[in-house]
């Protein structure tokens, strides 16, 4: 295999090359092994020092007169005595010895001020941390007498707030002791005033805090690992003048980019592994585990391996992004300028995902970077992850990575980027200089798919009806946005890229027999779809699907037959055929084999329905529609089949009589279709497929999957 040979050769060479680079070694080995432990030790020590400092800091209590001064000093003394007594009761070898609060005796100084204004001013100037005022004076506490105490503090300032908190806690302790003594005097048990005794049990696993932090560190490490090799292997090659000699080798750009991309991924994973090992070792051997994990336990090796597994798809994704970005640059410096905004753009979703309140659900499922951060966090915490969530994260990441690699392939070989003297990047994107073409480049198609995927997901999530709401709004919204995203935007982009729209969207007049085939498939496809759905029922339980179709059914009755037909049958058929069969399939056909293109486009079509239980059925229909398009070289038969298929669905919902007419009983628990429907429907479907696949010898049957040569290039 030429491809495998070239990629292996390039991979081996680039890996040796990059590993011999002192800068790589510094970034990859020296930084994690020396710098991270030092930084970590330093910052952790500084942090614990500050905390200790804050806990034992001396502070000044301001009072208004000598009587109040005596009162607060009496309280502090009483607290000191009771704390000393409790300390004497405790076994000093026990760990909760350290848990006892620190008495205030040595830490405070009480100063009297003339007026409340003077005291407030001193607190605001931060000369005094807290003011204590006894409006009624402090009487000897006796039952039936309230003793109001005011605490004045600047709660926005950490030292003042801390001082107020300590005094508050101290008063509470004295009060508690007083109550205890009163109960003892009355011969009552303590439960007299505490009818409930709440005990909290912490179930968080030992590495929960670690789990919150690590994924974000992980993201940073992986990006850091990918940056340098990505720049070196693309812009660096150009800057050193070696690109020209590489480009005259009989190796396609795809092989070059794939080989280099794999090296970047490898280095990113190696770097992140070293970082992770180093952090783990620092935490483990440095004795800082209690700072990071709540129970002070060790970090199990299994968890670390799990993180590494999460790392692989993420490293692939980040490497692809970095390669794509750096491919635009001609020099190292230029590449670094491009990389900086990308890192910031990546950190935002990463940071959002790292928030403790973020969950791996809803829009977060397809948010680039964010979904990976959340997935690794959930894995790390040992949480149960629904299979569909896993699929969403991996599918969206794969789509984004594929688009990024395609862009890199497209840009890397560009004349204007290879030779510094033949035009700038701006010129490459300038419409006037784009050569008119007939086929949509794969990089363009995949980029549109990658951008549209989250956009459409967000749109669908936003449009989804709330609990108890009618789905009519969602249906109208979808019918309105679908033409914009799936038809108008792609048409505008293709027009800008000077791509012939007739060819780009395969808008040709199909031979009549494909129209016949499309009608046959359109009126019968629901039969195999129904059976397929019944077959996969045990996998998904079918409840979600049933609930959804019931809701849609009610909404369709609400909006009436014409609108229902327009919104459910016509609009999706036209838009989805334009996008998935016209643009995506056509562009994939130009770059890969016919069947790869059909399968990939059908899977993307399935994934875009955002409903795991529907994936198989939509993907299979996608294969049939794609096959129809490839054979007829037009999307029109597919549109006809699509309209009929969706239209029949609407018909069955709005007029249940139609279903009874062909012999389907109105039984909700129907598991399989009646035999005669199966035979007739299956027969029609098979006839449609047969009519599509039969090769006519006279018509240029050899070129069915390529663009016609006679099409006008302008």
């Amino acid at each position: 295999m030429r491809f495998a040979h070239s990629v292996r050769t390039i991979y081996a060479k680039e890996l040796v090359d990059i590993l011999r680079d002192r800068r790589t070694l510094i970034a990859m080995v020296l930084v994690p092994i020396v710098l991270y432990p030092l930084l970590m030790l330093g910052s952790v020590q500084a942090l614990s020092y500050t905390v200790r400092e804050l806990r034992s800091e001396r502070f000044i209590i301001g009072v208004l007169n000598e009587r109040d001064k005596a009162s607060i000093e009496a309280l502090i003394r009483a607290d000191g005595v009771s704390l000393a007594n409790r300390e004497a009761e405790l076994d000093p070898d026990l760990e909760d010895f350290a848990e006892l609060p620190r008495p205030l005796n040595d830490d405070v100084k009480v100063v009297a001020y003339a007026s409340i204004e003077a005291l407030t001013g001193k607190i605001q100037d931060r000369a005094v941390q807290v003011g204590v005022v006894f409006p009624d004076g402090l009487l000897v506490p006796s039952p039936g007498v309230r003793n109001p105490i005011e605490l004045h503090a600047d709660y926005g300032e950490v030292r003042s707030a801390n001082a107020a908190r300590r005094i508050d806690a101290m008063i509470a302790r004295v009060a508690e002791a007083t109550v205890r003594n009163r109960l003892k005097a009355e011969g009552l048990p303590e439960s007299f005033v505490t009818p409930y005794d709440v005990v909290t049990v912490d179930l968080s696993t030992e590495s929960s805090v670690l789990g919150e932090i690590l994924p974000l560190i992980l993201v940073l490490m992986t990006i850091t690992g990918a940056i340098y090799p990505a720049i070196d292997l693309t812009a660096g090659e150009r800057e050193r003048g070696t690109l020209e000699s590489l480009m005259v080798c009989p190796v396609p750009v795809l092989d070059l980019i794939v080989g280099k991309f794999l090296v970047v991924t490898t280095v990113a994973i190696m770097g992140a592994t070293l970082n992770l090992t180093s952090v783990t070792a620092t935490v483990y051997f440095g004795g800082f585990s209690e700072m990071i994990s709540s129970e002070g336990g060790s970090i199990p090796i299994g968890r670390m391996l799990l993180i590494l597994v999460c790392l692989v798809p993420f490293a692939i994704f980040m490497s692809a992004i970095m390669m794509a970005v750096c491919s635009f640059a001609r020099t190292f410096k230029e590449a670094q300028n491009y990389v900086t905004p990308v890192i910031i753009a990546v950190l935002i979703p990463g940071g959002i995902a790292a928030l403790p309140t973020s969950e791996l659900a809803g829009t977060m499922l397809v948010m680039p970077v964010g979904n990976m951060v959340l997935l690794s966090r959930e894995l790390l915490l040992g949480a149960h992850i629904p299979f569909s969530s896993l699929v969403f994260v991996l599918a969206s990441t794969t789509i984004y990575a594929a688009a990024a690699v395609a862009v890199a392939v497209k840009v890397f070989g560009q004349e204007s980027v290879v030779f510094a003297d033949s035009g700038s990047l701006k010129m490459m994107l300038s419409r006037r200089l784009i050569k008119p073409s007939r086929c949509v480049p794969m990089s363009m198609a995949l980029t549109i798919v990658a951008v549209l995927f989250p956009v459409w997901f967000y749109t669908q999530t936003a449009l989804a009806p709330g609990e108890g709401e009618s789905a009519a709004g969602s249906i109208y919204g979808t019918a309105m946005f679908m033409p914009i995203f799936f038809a108008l935007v792609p048409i505008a982009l293709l027009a800008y890229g000077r791509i012939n729209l007739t060819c780009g969207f395969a808008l040709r007049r199909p031979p009549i027999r494909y129209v016949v085939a499309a009608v046959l498939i359109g009126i019968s496809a629901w039969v195999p779809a129904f059976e397929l759905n019944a077959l996969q029922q045990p996998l998904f339980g079918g409840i979600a699907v049933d609930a959804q179709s019931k809701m849609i059914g009610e909404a369709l009755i609400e909006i009436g037959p014409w609108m229902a037909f327009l919104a459910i049958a016509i609009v999706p058929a036209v838009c989805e055929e334009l996008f998935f069969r016209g643009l995506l399939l056509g562009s994939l056909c130009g770059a890969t084999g016919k069947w790869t293109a059909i399968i990939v486009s059908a899977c993307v079509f399935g994934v875009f329905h955002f409903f795991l239980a529907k994936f198989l059925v939509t993907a299979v229909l996608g294969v049939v529609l794609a096959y129809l398009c490839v054979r007829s070289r037009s999307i029109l038969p597919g549109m006809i089949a699509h309209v009929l298929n969706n239209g029949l669905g609407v018909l069955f919902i709005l007029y249940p009589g139609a279903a009874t007419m062909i012999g389907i009983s109105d039984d909700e628990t129907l598991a399989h279709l009646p035999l005669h429907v199966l035979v007739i429907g299956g027969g029609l479907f098979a006839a449609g497929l047969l009519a599509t696949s039969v090769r006519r010898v006279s018509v240029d049957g050899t070129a069915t999957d390529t663009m016609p040569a006679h099409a006008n290039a302008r």
Partner: protein
Amino acid sequence: MDAADSNDMVVAEELVKDFPRPDGRETRAVDHLSFRVPKGTIYGLLGPNGAGKTTTLRILSGLMAPTGGVARLAGFDVATEPREVKRILGFLTANTGLYQRLSARELLVYFARLHQMDRPAAEARVDQLIDWLGIASFADLRCGALSTGQKQRVNIGRALVADPPILIMDEPTLGLDVLSNRVILDFIKRERDEGKTIILSTHYLDEAEDMCDMIGLMHSGRLVAEGDLESLRQLSGEHRLSRIFLKLVHADEPAGASAS
């Protein structure tokens, strides 16, 4: 097809290359250039700076797409069959970089492997080239540590690693000392004697006089004169190539100024 029938290994017909300029207009670097190079000859492409020599050679090697016209190497169209062209072509420029962190030997083996050779074949071929080009003494040093002349020898080895029947060399002796110069020029001649077809662009006119079987004089993207040294002498009435060069290029000046 005519190229395959005839003896011409390189055929350029009406080649045009326009570069876009930031102001929206275009610069014509190559202007309806046509020439043929028969098998087993050294064709010298000569001309002042900016004449379009480098652009022409890049089009011939498939690195750049021509705006118009056709170029064929051994019958393969450079625009539509770039991979076939690259397979039969060795391309060399004066300022080509080498991978600094690979040794000369590793670099040569890498490029041999990129030409789909298996490892034993690649290593055998590289050993041969190391011997021929006098690389042995520095074959295992990293390329970053080599001198200009040593680098250029390695570069020639890279261009020749797949033993291509056609060689395109853009100023191969730029900035070299006399000794390296000699090694390289002798080597090019030897390749010619073995039946290779070579296109050479150079600034050194005495070098062209010594090396080239055919000479094409370029100016402003066009060929102003073509032929062997003898016919050029007759055309211009001058003996020395440098005089011929000045005279012919000068004669073209008014016409050249109008081409844009």
